[in-house]
């Protein structure tokens, strides 16, 4: 048995309409100030719409001259509250941050840089901004770099539970003894697409929302919050301030509907029960619940029902909604509401639900209407629920009321199923067949700048020529390919995908979701698992890079010219968590459900999280992976051009680690792995494809100033050492390394330098592969596609070569350039995101299943 570490909260930072410091925020809460008023930014679009807005630009201390203009508000706010929390905790600039993790929750990110195009303010468009703040995960890259946090980051993108779930993951990083500290941030500036979606869904309240009473409706809000989480002894040893202790958390998936909560509130009840069980607490221990409490009819009703189901004595427990002060802050809602509890409960006071009128039918609890209730709370619960049925619950104690360490029996984790969707086919067998035959899955495609087809090309030309910077940006691409923008891509026949799927709602499915679903179904079938009996204890963790691009584009286009006519059909499915929740709904997977949108190689983050959940026995099984779709649009072209597409359009033009050539082909598809406890997999006779022996994470922290420097790979090397340590292995035990870099000069150098550095003391050069050349770079799912071929190599004692590459970079590494017979007992899968996050996972040989 192992002790879980105790996790205390030692720093706070906050930014809301009613306070830009914790002090101000506390005072506003205690004086019952409501920050919801007629919107100053959106009223001319939507008429009299209300919102809780941060109208005064906060001060960004310590930010280099000129940087503010290049960053979006999501990153700036995250930086601001993150820095405040570190200052508050006495940790700013502390050496220990180099081994701390950073977890950020956000729902809508990477939006601001592109808003000028949408709002027809073409001259406000800044290429620099799209570079630094133009991708979904850039907020993590920016903050880790500015605050020098190098223990690895995760971007949690589960919509309205994002920051709550982020607290949970931060907690995990410490309780499992992996890190001493974690900075957890929620950030959510309000942009047009979000408010337009809620407006057309007709969920906005005319005035300030009145949760559980009066006229139903929610108020939208914006803001940010941050927590420093720290290992208990580490915190006390340095005399850190302690604001509370995180006792446990859980997430779950409703598997019900893409926007509506399950009217039976099964998932919402389950998440509370799981969190209580994780913390070894019983319902009687909970003395206060800070609810999700959006104010909408369906939320308030099913949330009330859920609490009734879990707490026999619910009428004696005060429950209240902080959204009546600051509205619904979406991705940052949970963490801000959690901070509100930490700031007010020590006063012996329970925050009332403001604006409380006549309770609605079926809302009959003690919602602490309008007036503070006196109570000394020792343990409280914080709940949030999101679109798609993402649920999250946190249990926390006020200072002095912590609990002894809980313990767990660490499980060994096996990979028992793999599902793959790629341009080379579906599933390992088809793909291997195609590779053996030398089939290429790529094809030359003419760039369709938008869904409008031919006329779109003209729009594209106009668009580019209208902006000097854009013209420059695209000049390379256009010169290379002539006037016609053509590219080589690896695409998937989605009609074939649909033919393979048995159970899903075709009407609600977009391409990327069907890819993920098919890969998931394959992985489950491959494992011989029965999801029907295990659905409640099966986690579904999805890594995302660009997410549902076509849907996002369609939604965004519907905002023009009149945002009041936004397409409600695409609004929920344009969110990052839509793919994971679609799979959960289609398959009835109701366990932990999280989307980690870390960008390139995001599936590695999903793998590590899923592994932890199974290793600690929190979940019986985990389905992890990623999915990507190629979407031909001007914006995409712009983004890809940052990344560096290969200028060589020949079939073999994507050559990873090639000395003479940089760049990749875009790929699409999905990869999913099914993990479960080794023993129980053995008991049921499941195929043991491989074993996960340990993992490591780190972050370069050089995103902001890294544009020209030679990446040393030192932090990737650190992640590798951490993984080896955890696995109890040395560099000599590793028989094969698989990289997942995407073949640009900077990606090659960083990955190769990192591996070389980590294996410096190995007796002879370590064999190295990277199979992205087969599939094109399938941004989030690449690690699983590579994993499948590595596990197969371990099984067959035969290693496939790196495809296409002709002259490898000069390194002290044994690039596998032709098929090799080699027995591999341990392999190492490594990868980085484009923002500088690094992962290393040690794999052990599985037992061939007869």
């Amino acid at each position: 048995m192992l002790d879980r570490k105790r996790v205390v909260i030692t720093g706070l930072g906050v930014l809301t309409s009613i306070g830009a410091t914790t002090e101000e925020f506390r005072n506003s809460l205690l004086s019952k100030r409501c920050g919801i008023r007629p919107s100053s930014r959106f009223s001319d679009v939507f008429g009299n719409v209300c919102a809780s807005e941060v109208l005064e630009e906060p001060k960004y201390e310590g930010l280099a001259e000129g940087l503010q203009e290049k960053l979006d508000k999501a990153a700036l706010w995250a930086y601001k509250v993150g820095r405040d929390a570190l200052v508050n905790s006495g940790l700013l600039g502390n050496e220990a941050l180099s081994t701390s993790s950073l977890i950020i929750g956000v729902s809508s990110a990477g939006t601001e840089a592109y808003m000028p195009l949408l709002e027809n303010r073409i001259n406000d468009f800044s290429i620099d901004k799209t570079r630094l703040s133009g991708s979904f995960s850039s907020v993590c890259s920016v903050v880790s770099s500015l605050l020098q946090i190098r223990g690895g980051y995760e971007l949690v993108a589960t919509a309205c539970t994002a920051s709550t779930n982020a607290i949970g993951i931060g907690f995990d990083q410490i309780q499992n003894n992996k890190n001493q500290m974690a900075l957890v941030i929620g950030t959510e500036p309000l942009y047009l697409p979000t408010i337009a979606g809620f407006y057309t869904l007709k969920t906005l309240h005319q005035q300030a929302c009145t949760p559980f009473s009066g006229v139903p409706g929610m108020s939208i809000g914006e803001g940010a919050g941050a927590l420093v989480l720290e290992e208990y002894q580490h915190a006390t040893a340095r005399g850190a301030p302690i604001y509370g202790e995180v006792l446990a958390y859980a997430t779950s998936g409703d598997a019900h509907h893409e926007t509506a909560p399950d009217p039976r509130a099964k998932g919402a009840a389950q998440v509370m029960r799981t969190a209580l069980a994780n913390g070894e607490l019983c319902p009687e221990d909970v003395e206060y619940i800070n609810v999700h409490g959006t104010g909408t009819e369906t939320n308030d009703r099913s949330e009330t029902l859920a609490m009734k189901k879990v707490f026999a004595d619910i009428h004696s427990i005060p429950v209240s909604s902080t959204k009546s002060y600051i509205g619904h802050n979406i991705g940052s809602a949970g963490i801000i509401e959690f901070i509100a509890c930490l700031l007010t409960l020590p006063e012996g006071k329970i925050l009332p639900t403001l604006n409380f009128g006549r309770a609605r039918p079926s809302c009959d609890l003690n919602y602490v209407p309008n007036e503070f209730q006196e109570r000394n709370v020792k343990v409280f619960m914080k709940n949030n629920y999101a679109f798609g049925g993402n649920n999250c619950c946190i249990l926390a104690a006020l200072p002095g009321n912590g609990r002894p360490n809980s313990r767990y029996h660490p499980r060994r984790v096996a990979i028992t199923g793999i599902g793959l969707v790629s341009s080379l086919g579906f599933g390992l067998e088809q793909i291997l067949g195609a590779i053996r035959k030398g089939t290429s899955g790529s094809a030359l495609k003419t760039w369709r700048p938008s869904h409008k087809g031919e006329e779109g090309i003209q729009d594209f030309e106009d668009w580019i020529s209208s902006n000097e910077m854009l013209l420059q940006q695209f000049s390379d691409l256009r010169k290379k390919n002539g006037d016609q923008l053509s590219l080589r891509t690896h695409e998937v026949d989605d009609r074939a995908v649909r033919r393979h799927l048995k159970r899903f709602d075709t009407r609600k499915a977009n391409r990327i979701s069907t890819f993920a679903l098919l890969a998931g179904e394959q992985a489950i079938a491959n494992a011989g698992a029965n999801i029907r009996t295990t659905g409640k204890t099966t986690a579904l963790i999805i890594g995302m890079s660009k997410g549902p691009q076509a849907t996002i584009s369609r939604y965004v286009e519907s905002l023009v010219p009149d945002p009041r006519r936004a397409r409600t059909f695409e609004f929920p499915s344009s969110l990052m968590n839509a793919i994971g929740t679609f799979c959960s709904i289609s398959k009835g997977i109701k366990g932990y459900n999280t989307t980690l949108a870390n960008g390139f190689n995001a599936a590695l983050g999903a793998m590590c999280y899923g592994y932890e959940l199974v290793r600690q026995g929190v979940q019986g099984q985990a389905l992890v992976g990623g999915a990507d779709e190629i979407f031909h649009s001007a914006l995409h072209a712009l983004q890809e051009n940052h990344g560096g597409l290969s200028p060589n359009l020949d079939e073999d033009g994507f050559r990873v680690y090639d000395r003479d050539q940089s760049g990749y082909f875009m790929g699409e598809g999905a990869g999913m792995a099914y993990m479960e406890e080794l023993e129980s997999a053995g008991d049921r006779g499941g195929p043991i494809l491989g074993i996960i022996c340990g993992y490591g994470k780190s972050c370069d922290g050089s995103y902001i100033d890294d544009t020209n420097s030679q990446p040393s790979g030192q932090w990737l090397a650190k992640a590798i050492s951490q993984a080896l340590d955890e696995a109890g292995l040395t560099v000599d035990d590793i028989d094969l390394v698989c990289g997942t870099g995407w073949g640009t000069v900077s990606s090659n150098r960083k990955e190769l330098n990192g591996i070389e550095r980590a294996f410096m003391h190995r007796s002879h050069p370590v064999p190295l592969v990277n199979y992205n050349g087969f599939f094109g770079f399938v941004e989030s799912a690449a690690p699983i596609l590579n994993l499948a071929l590595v596990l197969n190599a371990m099984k067959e004692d035969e290693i496939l070569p790196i495809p296409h590459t002709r002259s490898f970079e000069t390194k002290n590494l044994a690039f596998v350039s032709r098929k090799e017979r080699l027995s591999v007992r341990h392999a190492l899968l490594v990868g980085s995101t484009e923002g500088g996050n690094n992962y290393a996972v040690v794999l052990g040989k599985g037992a061939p299943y007869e």
Partner: protein
Amino acid sequence: MESDLESTIEQRKDVLRRVKEGLIVRLNLYQIVNQIDDDTPLFGSGLKLDSVDATELLVMLDEEFGIQVSESEDPFYLRSVNSLASFIISRQTKTNKN
């Protein structure tokens, strides 16, 4: 066919077609127009729409037909393609009279 009836039928056919096309595009239906019968229920087992789709229908009424629906409207106009068409036609007639 007398011209009165003919024009009433033409009007209805036109509205039905526009409603069906709108539904197909906006709600991602797999059907083509003639696979959707006039009396097809919108919710339940029919087109299997849900409450979120209902909000998209309101946007469609506004955009395609210039009709704003108040919350107090009797919900039965959303029963089927045909009832929706009847609702649209009655609103259009009302507007013309005003």
